[in-house]
């Protein structure tokens, strides 16, 4: 594996909502296997960035390349099939399905087409085994038969992550995975993401600075759609502009 070629290359991205700039000449590169955190105050355009990379939002200009291919005009599902998975800030699950069904459906998306009309995928040993191992990874295996709607908020977040991991993506976009979960759960989540490091490239948007500094190989700081700094955690921590704009007394 060549680690010097960026897996994701964002080039001069621009996106405005009226007068608000969500991306302003935004360029960013993610190296294969790294965990790249994007931080910034509310309204900096972090969630919009994830939306544009995942295909939910079309940029006004600029382009995005993934593994050397321009994906700027690809629909969401095609990017996902190419290996870009995302988690949502607010858990986006299938409430009527069980936890197991949620994960099997997520794997199904990446394993061939689903124009199969007879066999129940829940009974496909390969899918079930994979689903179970993903659930073990996020620590939700005990709830495999519970309906997703009956899960606690924290468990729904775990399921959300399991669904993103289920398709074994090469790029994982995580939109505030720590939001709204307790400290024990977030410690476990940090440990899980640490274990994933190296095998999957992660673009992490997160407000929890402990998690960001524990996980990130590189950090990009955004304000009003602009990158104001990008570098190693050590560089960011000592960057005067960043301290003024965002970190303040936090670090």
């Amino acid at each position, binding site marked *: 594996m060549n680690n010097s070629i960026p897996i994701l290359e964002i080039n001069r991205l621009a996106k405005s909502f009226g007068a608000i700039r969500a991306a302003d000449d935004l360029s960013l590169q993610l190296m294969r296997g790294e965990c790249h955190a994007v931080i910034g105050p509310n309204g900096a355009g972090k969630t919009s960035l994830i939306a544009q990379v*995942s295909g*939910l939002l079309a940029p006004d200009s600029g382009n995005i390349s993934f593994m050397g291919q321009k994906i700027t005009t690809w*629909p*969401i*599902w*095609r990017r*996902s*099939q190419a290996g870009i*998975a*995302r988690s*949502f800030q607010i858990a*986006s*699950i*299938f*409430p*009527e*399905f069980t936890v197991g*069904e949620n994960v*099997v*459906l*997520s794997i*199904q*998306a*990446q394993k061939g087409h*689903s*124009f*199969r*009309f*007879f*066999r*129940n*995928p*829940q009974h496909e040993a390969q899918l079930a085994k994979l689903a179970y191992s993903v659930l073990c990874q996020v620590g939700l295996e005990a709830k495999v038969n519970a309906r997703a709607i009956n899960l606690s908020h924290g468990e729904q977040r775990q399921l959300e992550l399991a*669904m993103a991991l289920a*398709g074994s993506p090469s790029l994982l976009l995580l939109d505030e995975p720590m939001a709204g979960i307790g400290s024990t759960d977030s410690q476990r989540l940090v440990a899980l993401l640490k274990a994933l490091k190296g095998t999957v490239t992660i673009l992490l948007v997160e407000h929890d600075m402990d998690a960001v500094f524990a996980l990130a190989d590189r950090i990009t700081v955004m304000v009003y759609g602009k990158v104001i700094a990008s570098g190693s955690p050590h560089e960011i921590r000592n960057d005067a502009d960043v301290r003024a704009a965002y970190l303040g007394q936090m670090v």
Partner: protein
Amino acid sequence: MHKSHIFLIVIVFALFAILPGVAALMDQPYLLTVGTKILISAMAAVSLDLLLGYGGMVSFGHAAFLGVGAYVVGILSFYAPVLAAGGWFDGREAVIVWPVAILFSVVIAVIIGALSLRTNGIHFIMITLAFAQMLYFITISLEPYGGDDGLSLVGRSRLAGFSLSDDTSFYYVCFLLLAGFFWLCQKIVLSRFGYAIRGIKQNPLRMKALGFPIYRYQLVCFAIAGAGAGLAGALSANQSEFVSPDLLHWSKSGEIMVMVILGGVGTLLGPVLGSIALISLEEGLALLTPHWMIFLGIILVIMVLSFRRGLYGLLMRGSNE
């Protein structure tokens, strides 16, 4: 699948199986006619449930596919002498005519679906209704085939050479086709495809983010539902030996939807129960009073307000489904 769900399926289909015997014992051939009507409507309702209950696509134009299936049978019957003289094929042979009817309904369903699925919510309901109304007015203007007055068939189709003019044979053909279609749908909703369309109903955005091209899945679902309704239409034309634009009227779409809602949306068996209940009520109340529609309306309102999953929910109450 839940045990009590299977139990209920077995009971309902067993009752269908013995109905001709009961009708004969009671010397009430009329019951057989009503029973056939129930089976045919049930097929249309089950196909709509696939769209509405599982795919979350509230199509208000389902009668269009019913009508297309029926008109294919009617028009082929109209040309049966010409076709026979030309040595083409028997225009009354069910093995040929019914699949052709299904095929036409599927084609129409794909066309209507392809355009309608670009919208959603209330727009989707309105556009499916609009397409169905368009087809309704086309059939009215089909002067060679009776236009407004409809078209009488030369007779029922023949199944591999056997006559279906006997009501009991025809009933059992409808029974077997409904059982087959029901089994197929039951399989589909628990297949990969079924999980995909149910996922789209619950959370389309997540489905896209997971990598599902949801439009294609919805369109195929539309085609399958169109096939079921088309076959129901072909059977309906055969039962009454008559086709008319009434089959495509929007009120027919409404009636099928009422069956699904009354019986229980997203349950497959519910629409069968809904068909039994609605047609029995119609026939029964019509015997009692000419103002039966008022009473039917009141009963429907009570049913929908009282039971979340319709008659199916009522019968499954107690089981922990």
